[in-house]
């Protein structure tokens, strides 16, 4: 009875959904932004990008236009502030060949700088501009148009009412031609309601872009303030200007879309494999925790050596030392990493955590995962990540990297340096424990004038693991776990 009623309700819901028309959208081509916008910008409508100087709004707008040009949606860039030549030069460094697109008639740059020495004497309108644009729209079959720094044009008008009138005219012109328009406006949020707040009402989609300094690190954020007729990500999203343009940090989806753990793979140490009932499971998250000098990096490097020996690829992100230093130190305990580095199977990327903001670190890590496609990732050490900015920033980084690995089926090993000698209690403080499947703790005990090394498998999801402390030594042949 209840089942039939439920089915009936489900049928009605489906029927309603099919009659609801989805708002047509155009992709911006900016990594991550189309996700925030749930598909892209509203097609044939106006989008407003507002932000302070240097916030990146012009670049976002330009990238939309350039992307359009490459996917057969010819675009026009109306530049009220920058010289067309400067724009061509600037985007060249991001890998965009604007002259080529212009030659192919996919892109048109209009130098619309108002002569600063022009004398205003009487009323005027932008009909001239629209006439010029009309010709270009027809000539290119343009689908997208960007008005960069439209406030420069609006400032010519003394009367706000006149300004509004002109913009209404422009809006009508855009709607008639069904152009997807993007306008950028300089607006400092600190200034309060800006003179151009009426633009917020006119536009169908409004995005605020902002650049701020937190803890001596500059971050860029964008926020979708409004999007008529569509859902959108409502938070502030950090973004960076990378090597190939804007990158909005990908959102971690609300759903855990992780691949199921794979087959067992050796930890690189026979005794440890035994303790783990076979080894690590591929695609899982592993945490190795211990005090300084406990042998964490050695353990991780033995894993890397073994993996490369099997023909697999490993990415090692090192926040503690350089690749050369690491290879050298490992050499002294019999772990040979140089051959794997020579073949390119082992890639070591060393960074100073405080060198850039967490968004850049995250982007670099995810980009490396996509580019190198390793089977395994090692991060040494996660305790250094706090130096990226704040504790929250560190958590963001670690959580998203681990999430990224699990989505790609990459085994992820996090090395954590504990402060207290009682390493066990350090685990819960990390906060990412729910994504960690295996925890191995290493400790050093002074016994009778000698340092005794021990390790224990604290947790190993889906495994019948050993639950006792095992002695181990670090010799010329690496870590040797004593047979229990």
């Amino acid at each position, binding site marked *: 009875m209840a089942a039939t009623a439920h089915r009936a309700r489900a049928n009605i819901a489906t029927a309603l959904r099919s009659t609801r028309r989805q708002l047509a959208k155009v992709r911006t081509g900016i990594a991550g932004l189309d996700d925030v916008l749930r598909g892209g910008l509203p097609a044939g409508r106006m989008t407003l990008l507002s932000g302070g100087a240097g916030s990146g709004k012009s670049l976002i707008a330009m990238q939309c236009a350039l992307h359009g040009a490459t996917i057969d949606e010819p675009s026009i860039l109306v530049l009220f502030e920058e010289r067309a030549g400067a724009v061509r030069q600037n985007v060249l460094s991001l890998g965009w060949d604007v002259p080529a697109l212009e030659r192919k008639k996919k892109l048109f740059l209009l130098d619309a700088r108002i*002569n600063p020495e022009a004398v205003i*004497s009487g009323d005027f309108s932008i*009909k001239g501009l629209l006439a010029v644009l009309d010709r270009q729209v027809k000539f290119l079959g343009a689908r997208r148009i960007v008005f960069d720094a439209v406030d420069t044009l609006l400032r010519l008008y003394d009367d706000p009412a006149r300004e509004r009138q002109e913009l209404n005219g422009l809006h009508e012109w855009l709607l008639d031609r069904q152009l997807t328009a993007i306008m950028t406006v300089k607006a400092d949020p600190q200034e309060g309601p800006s003179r151009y707040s009426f633009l917020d009402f006119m536009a169908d989609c409004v995005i605020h872009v902002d650049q701020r300094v937190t803890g001596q690190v500059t971050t860029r954020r964008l926020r979708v303030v409004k999007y008529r007729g569509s859902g959108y990500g409502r938070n502030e999203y950090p973004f960076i200007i990378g090597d190939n343009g804007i990158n909005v940090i990908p959102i971690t989806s609300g759903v855990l879309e992780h691949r199921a753990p794979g087959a067992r793979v050796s930890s690189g140490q026979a005794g440890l494999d035994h303790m783990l009932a076979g080894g690590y499971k591929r695609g899982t998250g592993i945490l190795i925790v211990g005090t300084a000098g406990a042998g964490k990096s050695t353990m991780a490097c033995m894993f890397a050596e073994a993996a490369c020996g099997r023909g697999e690829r490993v990415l090692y992100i090192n926040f503690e030392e350089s690749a050369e230093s690491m290879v050298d130190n490992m050499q002294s305990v019999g772990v040979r990493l140089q051959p794997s580095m020579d073949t390119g199977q082992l890639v070591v990327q060393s960074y100073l955590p405080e060198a850039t903001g967490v968004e850049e670190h995250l982007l670099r890590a995810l980009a490396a995962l996509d580019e190198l496609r390793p089977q395994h990732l090692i991060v040494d050490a996660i305790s250094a990540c706090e130096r990226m900015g704040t504790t929250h920033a560190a958590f963001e980084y670690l959580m998203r990297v681990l999430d990224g690995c699990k989505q790609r089926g990459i085994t992820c090993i996090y090395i954590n340096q504990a402060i207290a000698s009682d390493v066990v209690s350090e685990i819960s403080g990390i906060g990412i424990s729910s994504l960690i499947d295996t925890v191995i703790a290493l400790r050093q005990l002074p016994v009778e004038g000698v340092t005794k090394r021990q390790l224990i498998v604290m947790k190993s999801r889906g495994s019948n693991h050993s639950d006792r402390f095992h002695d181990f030594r670090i010799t010329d042949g690496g870590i040797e776990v004593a047979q229990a």
Partner: protein
Amino acid sequence: MPHAGRRPAAIHAHRAPRTGARAKTESAANGSETYAFRLFVAGSEPNSTTARHNLTRLCEQYLPGRHRIDIVDVFESAALALKHHVLVTPTLIVLKPRLGVTLLGNLSETRQVLATLRLNGHGR
């Protein structure tokens, strides 16, 4: 009133001849150079009609017989508008003399227009 500001030639016989832009402007003011205007309009849109009217009136009053007005309709000659960097209409470009001056708007601020064209104070 021609030569209104000039003193009798004899007193200035020993002076070096005036050269450059100043000379040109003065000679224009004194009626020896023709003004060439290019007015960009947007069809029969009100501001454009007003500008044409204002410019014609101004030329007849201050530059009788030494003006040339070229009207360009942006709806028909978009390419020319683009070449001259015309964005708003009406736009008045002064081709001759080379004052490097551009006027935006319907030219209803007569005194300002005259001052910009260096025509103020001469003639009525």
